[in-house]
């Protein structure tokens, strides 16, 4: 009894060790990359947040909570509130515009889908800065939109489309809309459409079936899309600078200024941490929604 059982378990042990070895081999590069360029910088930012500002940038002892209390100053809270408002509006608009697009693509015949998806990511083929400058051309008082408006005779003078919060939202929406469409498409494309027929067969109208079946099942994808749009929108500082004309300060501009201009690294670190916190909360929310939709066993 002992010897065969012994050999099997030893054999299995060796097999397991080999499996672990190959797993480490596969995980290794990614793990190293994440550790070196994600975990360590985040650890640095966390430690900077508790240190004192150096005279010419950098940080020094002693440990202090001063930067945290400073972040509660109404001036900065307002910047944060403004950023959240802009990022949330952008995300909601991206969801409202992106959902029908993703839905339409998912229901296309498969040969059209690839073309449609290429068109969705087409803007990424040119430089982000150039595309943002293009919006300045489009929106300024001499631009085609204003010219068209004047031509209709509805207005006598150009309206201020540029350098306000609306322009920032338009720019962010334009930049990140594909990031909403792609995960939404992925979740809708996987959808078992016979579920919709089942809902109809059980007496649901088409609209009812959509809100009872399609929409909840696409929620995990919508949440991922929302994170993909919300997070970079919140941290973006190029669009507010170019399209907001520097008047619309967002938390991204503030962080950059703390590190590069004001040379207050601890305060910049605290602001960066607030953004990381938002990100973590969002991911937790996404995981909770996903678990609720997909059931206890499988969750994406």
């Amino acid at each position, binding site marked *: 009894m002992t010897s065969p059982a012994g050999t099997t378990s030893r054999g299995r042990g060796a097999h397991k060790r080999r499996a672990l070895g190959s797993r480490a081999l596969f995980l290794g590069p990614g793990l190293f990359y994440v550790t070196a360029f994600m975990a360590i910088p985040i650890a640095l930012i966390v430690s900077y947040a508790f240190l004192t500002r150096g005279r010419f940038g950098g940080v020094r002892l002693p440990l202090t909570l001063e930067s945290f209390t400073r972040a509660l100053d109404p001036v900065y809270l307002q910047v944060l509130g403004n950023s959240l408002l802009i990022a949330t509006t952008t995300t909601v608009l991206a969801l409202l515009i992106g959902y029908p697009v993703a839905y339409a693509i998912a229901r296309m015949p498969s040969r059209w889908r690839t073309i449609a998806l290429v068109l969705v990511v087409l803007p990424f083929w040119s430089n982000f800065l150039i595309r943002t400058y293009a919006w300045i051309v489009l929106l300024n008082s001499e631009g085609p939109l204003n010219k068209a408006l004047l031509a209709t005779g509805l207005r006598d003078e150009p309206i201020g489309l540029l350098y306000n919060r609306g322009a920032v939202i338009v720019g962010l929406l334009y930049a990140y809309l594909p990031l909403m469409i792609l995960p939404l498409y992925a979740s809708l494309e996987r959808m078992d459409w016979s579920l919709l027929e089942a809902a109809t067969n059980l007496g649901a109208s088409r609209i009812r079936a959509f809100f*009872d079946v399609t929409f909840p099942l696409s929620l995990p994808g919508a949440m991922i899309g929302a994170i993909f749009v919300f997070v970079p929108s919140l941290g973006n500082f190029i669009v507010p600078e170019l399209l907001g004309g520097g008047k619309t300060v967002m938390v991204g501009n503030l962080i950059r200024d703390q590190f590069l201009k004001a040379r207050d690294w601890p305060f910049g670190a605290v602001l960066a941490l607030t953004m990381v916190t938002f990100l973590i909360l969002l991911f937790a929310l996404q995981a909770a929604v996903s678990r609720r939709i997909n059931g206890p*066993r*499988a969750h994406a």
Partner: protein
Amino acid sequence: MNAVHAPLVRIEGVSRSFGDVVALDSVSMEIRENEFFALLGPSGCGKTTLLRVLAGFSEPDSGSVTLGGLDLLALPPNKRPINLMFQSYALFPHMSVEKNVAYGLEREGLPKDEVRDRVAAVLTTVGLTDKARTRPTQLSGGQRQRVALARAIVKRPKLLLLDEPLSALDRKVRSEMQLELKRLQHEVGITFVVVTHDQEEAMSMADRIAVMSAGRVQQIDTPVDLYQRPRTMFVADFIGSSNTFAGNRVDAGIDVDGVGILPGHAPWPLATSLATLVVRPEDIEICEPAAALLAGVVIDIQFYGGSSTIAVHVDGHATPIIVTCQGTTAVERGAQVHLAWSPEKAVILGEEA
């Protein structure tokens, strides 16, 4: 046996094409109240299209469908008194078992108490009371099928459609569910229409079967009549196994080249003199040389426990003759055997129209 009443569903001249493909070619049939009806045929024969027409997911190009006098085609799918059990079951993965079952009742706007009571009752019927709060993803295939069934019958439809209800189950669970479906149909008194490509499944469950091929109805009959009196070669071939001999029609039977005259009877009028004689393997007997219709050499014997199958090569006939006998057989491979059958057991069919 259920009490079978007047026709419930009347399908008349229903046609449906997808591009060049004719899925339904002027299909007509009647499905009776309380009947267990099967649509049987190989894939692509149009049975699923007909099911989708009944459910309202596909609109026929022409023809009419009525249910108890009601024009079904005028109703949108969500207003038809018909429920469908999907082949994939199509259970809502984000809802618990009881939510799935309650969904259809809630859409009717029934009071909460009634919904709860009816859901509880139907879950008892299918034996899933203890799984009420489980998600479908955590159930076995057989359990999922019961949920799908419960979700459909809880609505008390006039007609229940089942699309390949047993195809996703393994063999043992399948035969259990076959009995279960028959029991349930009896218990709830709903007309069942099962779509299947599995002739055994249809034969064992259905009161009547419509055999379809290439968008047309080949024959509608009871399982016994389909087996014993097939109308077309397709039916004879599709239902059970059979030995076929092609030849010219003569008074006593058919004259087969190189074999001789084989006796049989023609239950239906024949259009041409060319005909085919069909004999079931269990209707052929091994006999004395004097009474023989055919003689040949045993080339293979297969033993199935309850029965044995003997393959006999007959000179002048390309395919081996299959003979089935009860239990074991005394003949051995290589032996010379003589075969016979009584004319009333052999059916002569004309050329396909």
